[in-house]
Every structure is written in C-alpha cells, then in structure tokens.
C-alpha cells in the first residue's frame, strides 16, 4: 500500500511523539517483503535447549547435558543475521537546530535512524546505534533480540548535547570494535571540517564495511533567509557573532554549497553512498534511497559511485 504523503510529511509525522511509532508508520507504509534472509544457521548466541529428534545434526548435541541427564539435547542458537548494521548518529548540539522548533535536525536524524533500525530488525537484521560528538557518547552493539529495538529507541531519543564535532576518534573507535563486516549508516549535518571524515570513512570502507552517509540540513541552513541583524549564537560552541543576514547571506550560501559539494565528492572518492536530505524531505524517500543503495550493493558488490543529491 503506498504511503499517504501527508502522513509521511516530516512535520506531520513529528506530531507522533513515540519515536518507535514514527518508525513503524514509515516502514509499514513501505514494507512489502522485499528483503528476506535466505540463510539459516547457528551462531554463537545461545537461545535454548531442544530434545534431539532424528534428522538433527549430531554436531549440535550437547554432550555435557547428555552426561548429566542421559538424554540427547540440541543446543539451539539464534539464527545468524544477514546484516550487522551500525547507525552512527551525530550527537552534537548543532543537530538541535531547527527553523521549526518542532522539527530539529536531531528529531529528523533520530526518526530516520529509527526507521532504518525498525525496518532492518523487522527482517531479522542486527542493528546497533552509536551516538557521538567528539567521542562516543552512547553505544549499542548490533543485535536482533526482543527488547533491543526499545533500547535503540531510548538511545536515539536522548537529546544531542555535544559541544564539538570530531569524526576522527569516534569513527576510528567504531571501526576497531567492528571487525566483522557490516553496514555503517552515518546520519549527520557534517558541520565540521571534512578532512578527518574522508580519512575515517575511507578507513571503514577499507575494512570491507558498507558505508552510507545521510547528510541532514535544515532548509534555513541552506538559504540563510533571516530577516534581522542579530547576535548569532552557535549552538555547538556557544560563540556569538553579530551578523547582518543581508550582508552575510551571499557568502554563506557559497560556502555551504561548496561544503555540500565537498562532502559529496569525498564520498564518491571513497565509494560511499551519499544522500543529502533537508529536514523537509519525506522519510519514505530517504528509506527508498537507502533500500535502493542496499539492493544495488547486494546485487553488485562492485563499488559504485552514487550521488543521490542530484536526483532528489
């Protein structure tokens, strides 16, 4: 069933207070069973014991239980997931900006991440979340267990408090933690020098991980349509400048455009899927982009250069 456009308009969606409910609304409008795990197996995560029935693999019989009880028991483990996805969400205070106070970049990013998380967990993938600013503030390893989604939502709902953005240390640390191949989805406004970002994303990519970047900006950050001269306070650093918008607009727009292009180019160079999204953009489009990127990647593991900003 196609989603109702009004419902998926971010501003309308933000009226739903529960993050999990928002994610469900987006995903269920989209869900059509297009992604299903073709694999079965045994992983390291124990689930329960089950009595042996002929036909079971005798390798999985727990001999210690047999020694104790003289009965054959199969040790059941959780099914191995297809995908281990880590959502990297920017937790700096700059994300708290929103020209509409009810829809900040943080809200948008959290809903987007929740949507991805919910979607992936629905189909049995393991999802984790990392909130960072200049260091990792909150980390949930990828899991697909009952209750994990709830923890995921709680983590995403926490307000962004970071005073500085540094992609270097957190991404390096995340790369160290995740030695198994997986997917990383970075959701950020990327309002920081991009030098370290390129290096770190390249590092992740080099370790065989899939990386997708969602670049979130408020429309006002793109056009700088302020009316009055005022003291502008940086949410992130707390610095203040007196700025007259009429005078500063031109220079600002040029710089932000250059920054977006630089980010896009950086991702292209590193073979990373880069999607730009203003906070006005419906979530299902972002989800669609995400799935398109996923399916294309699954179909062809060859690195491709994409830039969905132009298409959006």
């Amino acid at each position: 069933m196609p989603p109702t456009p009004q419902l998926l308009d971010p501003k309308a969606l933000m009226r739903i207070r529960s993050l999990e409910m928002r994610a469900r609304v987006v995903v269920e409008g989209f869900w059509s069973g297009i992604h299903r795990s073709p694999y079965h197996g045994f992983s390291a995560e124990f689930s329960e014991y089950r009595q042996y029935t002929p036909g079971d693999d005798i390798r999985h019989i727990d001999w210690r239980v047999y020694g104790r009880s003289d009965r054959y028991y199969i040790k059941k483990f959780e099914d191995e997931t297809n995908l281990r996805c880590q959502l990297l969400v920017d937790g700096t205070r700059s994300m708290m900006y929103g020209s509409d106070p009810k829809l900040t970049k943080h809200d948008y990013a959290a809903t987007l991440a929740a949507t991805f998380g919910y979607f992936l967990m629905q189909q049995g993938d393991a999802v984790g979340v990392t909130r960072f600013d200049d260091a990792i503030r909150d980390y949930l390893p990828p899991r697909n267990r009952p209750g994990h989604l709830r923890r995921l939502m709680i983590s995403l709902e926490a307000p962004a408090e970071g005073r500085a953005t540094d992609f270097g240390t957190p991404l390096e640390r995340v790369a160290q933690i995740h030695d198994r191949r997986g997917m990383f989805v970075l959701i950020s406004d990327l309002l920081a020098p991009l030098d370290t970002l390129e290096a770190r994303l390249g590092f992740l990519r080099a370790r065989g991980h899939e990386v997708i970047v969602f670049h979130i900006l408020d429309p006002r950050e793109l056009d700088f349509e302020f009316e009055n001269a005022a003291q502008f306070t940086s949410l992130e650093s707390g610095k203040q400048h007196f700025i007259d918008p009429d005078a500063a607009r031109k220079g600002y727009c040029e710089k932000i455009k250059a920054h977006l292009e630089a980010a896009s180019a950086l991702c292209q160079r590193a073979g990373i899927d880069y999607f730009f999204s203003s906070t006005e953009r419906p979530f299902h489009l972002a989800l669609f982009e995400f799935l398109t990127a996923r399916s294309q990647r699954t179909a062809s593991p060859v690195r491709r250069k994409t830039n969905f900003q132009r298409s959006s």
Partner: protein
Amino acid sequence: MNFLVPLYLAGALAVAIPIYLHLRRRPPRDSVDFSSLMFLEPTKHQPIKRQSQLENIPLLILRCLALLLLAAMFARPFMPGGDSEGDEGRMRTVILLDTSASMQREGLWKDASERTKEVISTIDGEGAVAIITVDRAPRIVTSFGDWESADVAQRKEIAKAAVETLKPSWQGSNLGAGLIAAAEMVTDASTDDETPRPARIVVISDLQSGAALDAVADASWPSNLKVELAPIEAREVTNVTIAVAASTDPDKPAVRLRNDPASEESRFRLKVGDQTIAAVVPAGESRVFQLEEPISEVSVTGDQHHFDNRLFLAPREPALVKLLFLGDDKPDDSNGPEYYYRRALALSKVMHPRFVKSLDDDPALLAIARPLTGAEINAVRRTLQEGRDAILLITSTTMDRTLAGLAGMSAAPTLRDHDHDRRYALLEEIDFEHPTLREFRDPRWRDFTEVHFWKYHILEEAVLPESATIVARFDTGDPAWIAIPVGQGSLLVMMSGWHPRDSQLSLSSKFLPLLFSIYSDHGPQVSGARQFFVGDPLPIENDEEKLTLPDGKTESLDPAEPYRPEHPGIYRVSNGERHRSFAVNLRPSESELTPLGSEPLAALGVPIDRKTAPDTAVSADSKRKLRSSEAESRQNLWRWSVVVLLAMLVAEAWLATRTGGTATQPEGAVI
C-alpha cells in the same frame, strides 16, 4: 515629615545606578541560535546609537522612584506632632498592684505602696484611677466608678487610703490574669466614652520570673492601652527556699533546699524540731536533705528573705477503718479465727482499726465465720452490693444457708466435711491472675506449699452461680477459695478456716498479704496527697465540719464551698471522730525571684510602653527618640511605602516588558 533612621536616606544615592544603566550604550539584545558559525563571518560594524541620551525615560523615572521610596522606607518616615499630648490629661490609669507572697520580701511592699501613691499623685484633673491587686487571682480594690463618684478634692486621698489597707498575701502570682482584668476594666470603661481616652496599666510588681503569664498569651488589647512597668526591686538578693522532695521512706521525709542563682550566701541552717543542721547550697543549686523522723515543720535560716523559709509537712496518719468479724469464738481465743483476724488487721502506721459489733455500724471490712440469720444475710448482702468486700469462712456444714443467701444461690448447697485420712491438703490451681490474689502474682510469692489444710469442707461445684470463680483448689480437686461477685462488691468463700485447728494459713507468711489483697479493691484508701499550696482547694469531705487553722483558730466549714487556705501551715479537719491534717505551703513559683524584665511580656503581645520599660534609659534625648519611635510605630507609614513600592515594581515590570519588546531591534543599524 521626619525620619526615624535618617541614615538610610543615603541609600537614595543608589538612583545613580539606573541612571547610569539607562545612559549606557547597550549591544543589540536580539539573539538567534544557529547550528554553527563556521560559514559565517561576523559583521564588522555594529549599530551605533546616534544620540547619547537617556533611554526609556518613564521606566527610568519609575526605577528611580522605587529606589527613593525604598530608601525612605528604611529610614522609617513619620509625621511629627501626631502624639496626642492633649489627651494625656484624660488618661485612665489602672494600677495593677502585685500582692503575691514574693512581695513580702524585706522592704518590697513599702516601696510598692509608695510607688502606688506616687502614681496616684501624678494623675491630672480629668484622669481616672482604678486599683487592682493580683496574687492567685485579681481583685478590684477601687474601680473607675469609685473614683468618679468620689468628691474631686478627696479622690486621691481615698485611693491612697485604699492602698494603705492592702497587704501582701501568701498566694502565688498570676500576673497574666491581673493584666487581663485590668484591660477588661479599661475596655468596660471605654464603652461609655464619646471620644476615646488614652489608658494605661501601671504594673507595680517585683516582676518575678515565677509569675504566671499564660493568660495573656491569647489576649487582645485595646488600641488606646499602654502597659507601663514599675518594677520594685529587692535590696537584698540572697534567698534560699525549701520544698518537699521525693522520699522512698514515708516515715523519713526529704526536703530540698534551693539557693537562688543571684544569692551571695551559700551557708544556711536547717531547723528540724530542736535540731539545727548546717546546709551548704551553692548559688543556683539545690540539695536534698533526708530527715530522720516525721515532723510537721522544717525551716531554714541564713538568707535575707524569710517569706519562703518555712515548710510544713503532714505526717502520715493511719486511716480509720471499721471492721466486723461475725463469729462464734471469743476474740481472745487463739483457737478461733477472729483472734488472728484482729491481730492481722491491728493498729499500724497505715490503718487505725475499729472493731464494731454490728452491721449497723457500717463496717468497711467484714469477715463471717458463723451461720447468719436471715436478717443478717440480707444486711450483709446489701453491704456487698454497695461495693464492700467480705470473707466467708465455712467452718461448719451448717453454713449452707448462709452461703446460699450471700452468694445468691436458689437452693442451699450440700456441704460435707472432708474425710481426711490424716493427710493434709495443699492448694493448687491457684489463679494468680484473679484480682483477689493479684498481690501474689510475682513468682517469688507464689509458693503456697507451706500452707497445710487439715480440715475443710466439700462443695459441689455445680451449685455455684455462673459468675463464681474458683481461685484455688485443694490438691484433691475440691474448691478451696471461691470468689463470687455480689453487686459491686465481692464475697470470698474459704472452704476451710484459717485458724490452726483447720489450717496453717493464719500462721503462714501469706495470711497478712492475703487479707490486704482481698480488701485492696474496696477497702479504705490509706494513702493520698496531704501536701497543698496556698490557694489550692483542700479535699474536705462532706461530713467534716470543723477546721482548725494553723494559728489555732477554728472555723466551721460550708460543704458547698471548697475551702482555699490563705496562709501556709498545718490545717486540721475533723468530723467529730476522725481527724485529718493537711500541710499547706507557699507555692514554689513564688520563690523564683529573678526579675522578668519587659521582654517576655512584650513577646506575649502585651503593649508595653517603652518610655517606661525598666530596661530603657530615659535621658531627654532618648525620650525624644522614644516619642519619635512611638509616633512612627503608630503611623506605620512604612507599610504604605511597601504597598506603593510593590505597585511601582509591578508597573515597572509591565513597562519593561512592553518597551523591551520593541527594543529588541536595535535602532539605526548601520552596516
């Protein structure tokens, strides 16, 4: 307009602060949050105010006025000339004269009466004076009515003559009640006034700390009333007081000597009968002395105030108890039960027994050891129903009718002699929880095995009334002692005699406590307080008609009116055959002589006139200050200042919000 504390007006200089702040060039206050300033260059040229002049003049004026008002408020403004000097001549004066026992101290009463006369002398032509004395309770000596009805020329003399007749009493001091009575008198007098007249209460008292002030705590005072304190100070300070102390042995009373904290002496002499005991009590401390024998009066010497140096003690007197033993044996026959009964309840320190011969004499304690006639049974039963206790000893099988009649059984029970086979019986299943035997509840006294019973009678349990309780049985299982409630009293039936022919009970150590335990519920009360204070009502009973005062005079008593002794000493009452004595002493609070000062009264809300407060110096300058202070506290202009100030602050806040809204956009921004 004057100011009580003009120094605070210097605070008005603070108006410079808002003026400076309004002159200052402020940076634009409009602030916009933005995610990051990394792509923004600060605008070089900030807007400049073209003219350097005051901003928001109305706001500034309001702020300056508020500060000025605040400074004025702290300086306590008042309007001079508000003092109603002209009314002072019409002042009503109530002289509250303390006549409590503490005023008996050396020289105090003389000073007090002179001071009273001085106050009367200062009354102007239109003024009025009333005199109230206060000790345990206030007493009106002369009222305003008396003053106004007297001849104008004679008024003062009459009032002074009335003061001459007064004497300090031995009562405690209830100064609070005196103040209330004086205030009520002023209120009553003011109701007839066309124009309100000022009034004052002049308290002439030693203002001792022992004075009761509870009454004034909730009082409301007329607005035109001031209370002037005229404290009378003792010339000497050493005082020791004597009071009863708790003693474990009632025959050896204890007394406590307490030396006043201000005393200069610590060596005193305690006079007990003919003996004199040296007593060293440091100032502010107390010592307890135990006396060797009961005595009716103890006194102490060595201090300078003698009014509280005597203590009267009422020696314990045995209570008169009427007893009756109804038996066949002679009282001096040691083989009969009465012999032991009389000896057990003999004359002692607690009981003065009087054995009567007939039930008509209304005996308090009763024992029966013979068959009674029908009339006797009815009389005993009546006595029991009224709440007396009786013991019924079953000494023969012929007592069946007596038992039935007293216990209220429908038919006489069958009594049988115990067929003893030369073996004695012992008590068992003793109900120590029963009130009759509660004196033996302690495990130490529970051993009844030493009491052997040779002869007893057997009663069928079934015939006993339902309310009967078997409090002890013989070891054969037969009932031994049966408690039967009859009306308000109770009957204890013993199935064996206590005399040696029947048992060892009377010769055992249990006998005396047993009798006292049986009679303890309804027997005469031998204890009871006999120490009283002057002014307390004495617990005189209706039949006591004659009272002997400490000085030997006798008075006849009116049973309807409680008798309150007015002097310390031993009071004796008598109803013809019984004599009781009560020791009446000075109230201990009268010996708390530390001067109170005006603060506790002021704290209780008494409108103390500070011009005359004892702890205030009265130089000409300070008098003027006091007048100012009084005018200021009467006018209370500062309270109005607070109201105006609050209104101004509200207006300021409103104005600031209004102008603040428009001021967010800096004017004349030039980039």
